[in-house]
């Protein structure tokens, strides 16, 4: 096995297709390892470093797509969210692969101004001992505790498996005339953003700048990976949702409901439309992206978890992000800092 830094791959190239197939087939992988995501992050001013893991036969068998700020004068982390792509089920192989990837990252660290590597594969807890020399990161890039809905049953079966309140509110929204429009049009971004901003202000969460969403949609929508949903009622837009579909998994990444006409249950209409859209596109799992399973009323996820719980699904606890700092590079930066402070 060996690791090589891959050039910027196009989705149509042979190696590009191979990579996409590996990511999509890997249950611990996700859209943030896709080439399109890399392209999106590049547009956001990040450097993208793609490490390929090859078998001795020169066949691509895994790897990781990392991002790092382009002007990292201070030293930052290479981050591989939704990755690395490794045969996690085979402990020995995964250990060897992860070791090679880590060593390659450390070897090239100085070239990218990196002081460490952060990974976040979608593996369920507890973390395997092959991460023993890694440390839990201070932040997780993905929602570590989440809710997966199995999309293989039919729409009727999904409805039947929901909590009565979820089923009722979905139907209530439909009866009251709330419709959902699916858009891939960049011109809808200001509307999407206005609703997100309103929700962010009300519910006290940070929303990325609007150009984040412009770049995201411009890159992912043409490939069929990103979808904007709008709940509409009597000429008004009551809510919005950004759905990412990639491989087997659909992710409800962002959503915001307007302060107006909340009794119309636009949130339920949006989720249901997103679930159906994900099914149509062949996804088998829907990630609600953040969920508190026990009903702890003081947990930061408490509010929206009550809402998500109504749709059924299974609570999932992922291992979260893990960091590995490159001691020598980190020592360099600390010595520089000490000199500045002297």
């Amino acid at each position, binding site marked *: 096995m060996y690791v090589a830094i891959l050039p910027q791959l196009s989705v149509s190239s042979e190696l590009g297709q191979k990579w996409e197939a590996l990511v999509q087939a890997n249950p611990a992988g996700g859209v943030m390892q896709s080439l399109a995501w890399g392209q999106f992050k590049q547009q956001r001013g990040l450097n993208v470093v793609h490490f390929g893991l090859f078998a001795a036969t020169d066949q691509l068998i895994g790897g990781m797509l990392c991002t790092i700020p382009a002007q990292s004068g201070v030293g930052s982390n290479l981050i591989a969210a939704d990755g690395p792509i490794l045969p996690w089920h085979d402990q020995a192989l995964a250990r060897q692969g992860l070791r090679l990837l880590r060593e390659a990252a450390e070897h090239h660290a100085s070239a990218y101004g990196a002081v460490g590597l952060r990974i976040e594969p979608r593996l369920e807890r*507890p973390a395997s001992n092959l991460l023993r020399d890694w440390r839990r990161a*201070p932040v997780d890039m993905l929602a*570590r505790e989440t809710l997966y809905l199995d999309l293989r049953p039919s729409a009727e079966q999904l409805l039947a498996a929901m909590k009565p309140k979820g089923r009722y509110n979905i139907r209530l929204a439909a009866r009251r005339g709330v419709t959902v429009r699916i858009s891939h049009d960049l011109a809808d971004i200001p509307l999407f953003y206005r609703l997100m901003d309103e929700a962010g202000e009300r519910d006290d969460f940070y929303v*990325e700048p609007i150009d984040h969403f412009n770049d995201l949609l411009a890159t992912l929508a043409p490939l069929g990976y990103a979808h904007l949903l709008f709940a509409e009622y009597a000429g008004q837009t009551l809510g919005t949702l950004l759905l990412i579909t990639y491989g087997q998994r659909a992710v409800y990444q962002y959503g915001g409901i307007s302060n107006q006409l909340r009794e119309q249950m636009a949130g339920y209409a949006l989720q249901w439309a997103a679930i159906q859209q994900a099914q149509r596109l062949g996804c088998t799992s829907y990630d609600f992206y953040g969920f508190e399973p*026990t009903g702890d009323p003081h947990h930061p996820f408490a509010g929206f978890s009550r809402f998500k719980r109504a749709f059924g699904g299974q609570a999932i606890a992922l291992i979260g992000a893990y960091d590995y*700092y490159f001691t020598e590079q980190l020592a360099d930066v600390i010595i520089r800092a000490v000199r500045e402070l002297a």
Partner: protein
Amino acid sequence: MTIVLDQRSDQSLAVYIDGDLQFDSRDEGVYHELLALPALALAQARRPKRQLRALICGGGDGFVARELLKSSAIKQIDLVDYDPTILDLAQNEWPELNQHALTNPRLKLHICDAVQFVDLAAQAADEYDLIICDFTVPRDQAGARLHSIDWYQQLAYILHPQGLIAVNAASPSQTPVAYWMMYNSIRTADLNPKPYRFALPSFTEAGYGDDWGFFIGSRRALRPREFDHLALAEPREFLHDIEQLKRAFAFPAALAEKRTTAQPTKLASDALLHSLFAPTWDEASGTDWTSLDFVHDPAPLPKPHTSPTLVPSAVQQALQADQGLDESQVFEQVVQVMPALRAEQTRSMVREFIANPLRFLNSLDLRSLVEALLRRSRELPRKLVTELRLLRRHLQRTWENPQLLLSRGLRIVSVIALVIILANLLHPDTTYAKGDTSPGSGATSSQSMVRTNSPYDVVQAPPSTVAGRGFASSTYGRGPVDEYGTYIPTTRRYRYYGSYYGGSSYRNYNRNQRPSEDPNEGGALYRLTPETDILANGEIVIILTDQAYLLLADQVMTVVDAEDGLPIVFLQRDEALIWRTHRELDRQRRGLDGSVKAKQDWIDWVSWAGFVPWRNDDQAELNNIVQTRGTLDQAIKSLGSIPANQPAIRVAPTAGGFQLFSSVWMNAEGSLAILEQPDGSKAYLNKTGWFRDAALTQPLSEPYPDEFRTKVLVPFLTKQTTEYEAIKKRIEADLTSAKSDLSLLNSDKTEYTSIQTSYGPSDIVDYGTTEIRVDEALRRTNDDIARTQQLIQILNDQLSSLPKQNDAAKKFLQSLK
């Protein structure tokens, strides 16, 4: 680069580049007339007979060109913009707005980098009479160089000695340091800038500050009298006359004072970016300083900032000025002053992100780092080497809680934490990350107003100004607004009898005198805390259950039936609750005072300077804040006398009893509720009756308040027991997870131990993705075991400290149903 066109229903157009508002067609005229016309008029006045050559750097939207082309003295314009997309849009999407300026024969387009263009012009000894810089506010180093001393020196080189330069800058009130840094860079390049500012509603709405600033300058310094008889090009829509223009040069003296310390920046410096990313909301007001009072600014010119720094200068200062503070206090100061490192970060976001430095220290192997640093001890100051040796000793003994490390007063620990924090803050994805990794989240306590044993202790400074739009005329009155101006949509409605609930009403009520009229009905006007609302008449209500709320007043507290607005029971005033509520009201009232002042100052300045579009909205918003502030006054008044000092924590009236909420208790056995009545006596209540004594032998003469059982106690206890269950489940889930980690660690330990026994301590084994000696693997595993055991201990403690109250509450609930 992403460009978004937002065409509104009123046919106005707003254009965003990379998320930043470029212009809004409703008021772009204010901006472009102000940026271009004064410089144009001065250039013309200085060389009246000359045909002028102008250079526009940036400005691909065509609006500055439109303004310059109003003058026939303009012979030629070179417009340099690196972005073909914006030029294309300007010619095809809004040619009517820029009046086809970009296809005017007097204008020549250059699609290239402005720095290169100016370099070439300098080499060719080209000269311009007028240079206008209309760049977007820098978000990165490439943008920041267009405000560096080096850039302005190049411009000075191609500007005729009598020529004029006008520069789009930043908001003087929102980013004063950055604004004056730009000013001092232009000064250093000998372009003698004069600062001026104006109000732009669309920029304010987009959050860019209450004012916007420009500079106008020349190699030959401008004399104030040059402004006296300027002939501004026509037609003009917003800039009425010279007097209005002169007023734009006025600043609050305190704000202008900041120029004496703002460093000009060289090409490689990143200091301007740090200042731009860290808005400070300068609250200085007034118009007592104007740059039209002098020819050359007498203020000292600070030394240039030359190179990028790893540690932002504000943090450096905090770390250096640590006299008399211990290390943890120093670190707290660092957290307070840490600037944003990226355009999209806000100061509060950064502060929140690093509030818990332990999580950053936990993410690295401190022991190997200390060894690596000690190997390079020759590169470090002696004091830090001593600290590192001390730290190594601490770390060698056993795994040590980073909490202790931070409190040991070692500067090196702070520096390490700082570097890790900077590494995280630099990556744009981390501050928006979806989760954090604090363990055992079940222990969070509810910040309840009505429990004496969990006082509302987090006292923050009030916000300096309301940022939300809740006080704007479009939302105000539809639902409660909080101190940040956030409108909170809610379905909470109140029925109430206004002045009915005072002490005398309590006596009347007990004499069976009930109100005959209908109750008032309405939503709340203001949200004091998540569970406390202020009604339009200033009454303070605290939600107890869906069917009942607690109303605070000067002599008694009343539990009110939310359905009919009638009292269910009267309770003795809980002085601790009154004290907390008053503290909170007073704090938030001071916040609103600040907002009123800021808003009023702004309106005064805007109208004085003659920029008045959309002022009615501001006036309405101001009126609404003033009205709300008045309601808070009423609320404070409704509380009557306030204890001078914080009252002591109340003890249960029976041994082992639990407080349910203010003045209502439950006995340890879970068989009785104990109500503290307005006259100081107790009422003991169970499912069937209420009594004067705990033995339930002396029934009270007033009728049994069954609604207190059905609408207050049962739903209250139901919610409480459900919450306890959830918190318990949460901690148990965390505990299970920690225990499975521990069991994996223990099996690793067994394996390493047996390898060490069979092959000796130097045998090489897999430790995660590293290969190390087995004795070292064993040592690290023992550390991990210690760390996990500590977590398990914490979770177990949390679990056992979950009050026995839950059992009592469950039992009581059962008996009440």
